[in-house]
């Protein structure tokens, strides 16, 4: 009866891939950050799923991990979006294709 777990895992995998695809292909920096948030959430889903169907759910390990992940992701989103705003002020654009100052 591992079916439910497999389902959750697959959903998580799909979400992760979608988020990655968005991060790798979209030109707008904010959409890249959106993709990254999706990836983080997919990982959280994986954690919770394994907590629920794994051995020792009473240890709360998975749950704790997921909560802390959420907290860190929130902090990271804040800082990342602050950076994007700052870059927009400098370069008047958020187009990643044009940001190649690190070239070479």
């Amino acid at each position, binding site marked *: 009866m591992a079916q439910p777990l497999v389902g959750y895992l697959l959903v998580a995998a799909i979400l992760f891939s979608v988020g*990655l695809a968005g*991060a*790798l*292909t979209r030109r707008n920096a904010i959409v*890249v950050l959106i993709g990254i948030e999706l990836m983080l959430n997919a990982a959280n889903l994986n954690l919770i799923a394994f907590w629920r169907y794994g051995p020792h759910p009473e240890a709360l390990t998975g749950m704790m991990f997921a909560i802390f992940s959420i907290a860190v992701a929130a902090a990271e989103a804040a800082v990342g979006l602050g950076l994007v705003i700052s870059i927009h002020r400098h370069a008047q654009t958020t187009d*990643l*294709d044009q*940001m*190649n*100052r*690190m*070239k*070479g």
Partner: protein
Amino acid sequence: MIQEETVFTLRESTSAIVGILWLIPALPIAASGIVAVLQQPRRKASAVLAIGSLSASLLLSLVAFGHVLVGWAQGSQVRETVNFTWLRVGTGHVDLGWVLDPLSAVMLVMVCFVGLLIFIYSTGYMANDENFTRFFCFLSLFAGAMLGVVIADSLLLLFMCWELVGLTSYLLIGFWYQKPSAAAAAKKAFLTTRVGDIFFLLGMVWLFAQTGTLLFYNGGAGSLEPLKLGILLASPAGLGLTAAGAIGLLIFAGAAGKSGQIPLHVWLPDAMEGPTPVSALIHAATMVAAGVYLVARVYPLMQAGSLTGGTTVPLTVVTWIGTLTAVFAALIAVAQNDIKRILAYSTVSQLGYMMAGLGMGGVAVGMFHLITHAFFKALLFMGAGSVIHGCHEEQDIRQMGNLKIEMPFTFLTYAVGMLALSGFPIFFSGFWSKDGILEAAQHWSVARVPFYLLVFGALLTAFYMTRQVSYVFFGTWRGHGEAHESPSVMLFPLFILAFFAMALGLIGTPAWPWFKAFLDGHAAVSGLGEPGLFALMAGSSFVVFVGLGLGWRIYGNKRVKADDLDPLERATPTVWTLLENKFYIDELYGVTVIAFYAWWAKVADWLDRCVWGGVVAGVTLLFQKSAQLSRQLDVNWVDGSFDKGCEELANSGGLLAGVQTGRVQLYLRLLALAVVLLTAILIWSSQG
């Protein structure tokens, strides 16, 4: 034939004089060396050095001669040698050394004495020449080399000095080298004697190969001593000859070149291009006598194998060539107009007499004539030099005349020399020496023809000498300007030589044949009792008088003009032309030998330029091409590969730098890709 006297005992011990005998040639050579490094204007120093060194050599020679004389008087035949090893090659060795015996002693004294007189004469004759110092340097070198030939006990040492003599002859004939004729004459002399020297060298090598030694006398082991002679006689050499005979002929070929026997006589008349003292010393008294001396020195070899009263092949050949040369040259001398040329051909003729004397009569006969000839021929040449000097360098006898008035002393001494050469009886040495040869010819066992030919030659000698003296000293003066007598420094040697030209006869008369006894090593026994002796003396005197009379009749005291034809020329023009042109021998040689040599030189030149040059060029081309190939390899492959490698590195660097676009998404993609790969590997490996 003089009966065989008991031969003296041989004494071979070494004495003090023999130890320093090497000084005799060494002193003049050393003087020559010192003069060579002197600077030009030192005339007095060079003359003093040359004359001084030769005087010292003369003194030593007299001491040596005295030593041998004392030995002879005591009844022993002196033959002292000093030999030493010069080269060692493996187990073989080559020795050199010198010998003191009667033959070398008389020759030493003669060469030193006549040489010294000519040296003194030269200081006067060459006084106005600017190359005075060079003259004495060469003259001294010649004297040293000639003395070396005389005392050599080794055929090799003799050959070395022989070559040195030839060299100095070349240098002195071509002394006035600016004159093309002089340079050509020097070259001709050297090359012609070279031809003879090749045969000499062959004989020397054969002798060494056969006997293992080149020493003449070496305490029983020398090549002229009975042991080695026996070996030589035992080995055959083809054409019916023994090795002794063949070697003897080869050595005689060398002597024939040096002594101007036909067919190698062509250089001697041309050698008159040199200064007159040179002609006197080298081409009358000493160098040309070296050939005769050589034959005398190796006489035991020449004589080896003959029975008593018989003869050997080499000696027969020597006799015939000598006789033919004597007559041949005398005929040519009749038709010459240059005062020195007449004397030159006379020298060739007399050398022929000497060779004939050696062949038929033995060492003493030939050597006696050599000694007397040295004195009176030197006298004649020096007298001719005096005449030339007095006539302002004129040499054509048709431009002279009546010089007995202007140059009385010269005339007096010249007359003595002329009579000696002609063989005027009793008072002149030439008579006695020539008679010795005629007597030997008369008793020769092989044939009588040489005797008649030599008598005819004597007639011709008297005839042409009378002709010469008439043209020069009698008749009317046909020259330009005034003739004058020569200075006393030139006349003084003439008188001394004239005295000896007369007095030397005393040591060779049949009444007291001291010279023969001295050389052959036995007591002097009077040969007056020989049958036919007086008949021979009377006969030869008669022949001489006929010659003198004929000459005087045709030429004597006539008033002729400079461009008048010679009476004989008017009588027999074709014969005269033949004689005047020396039987066209030179032209014959020019067409045959010289032409062949020139053709051969062309072939060699072609070979050198085209064949060897082509080989060299080919090799050079090969090297060039391989060098070019190597360079191409280096540039293209080595450098190229290295450069290409560096280029690839740079390119790859560029490629890798292309990854760093500065775009974040690319980095992300690469990261994700790496994660994919790692995860896949992890899962795969954990599965398996």
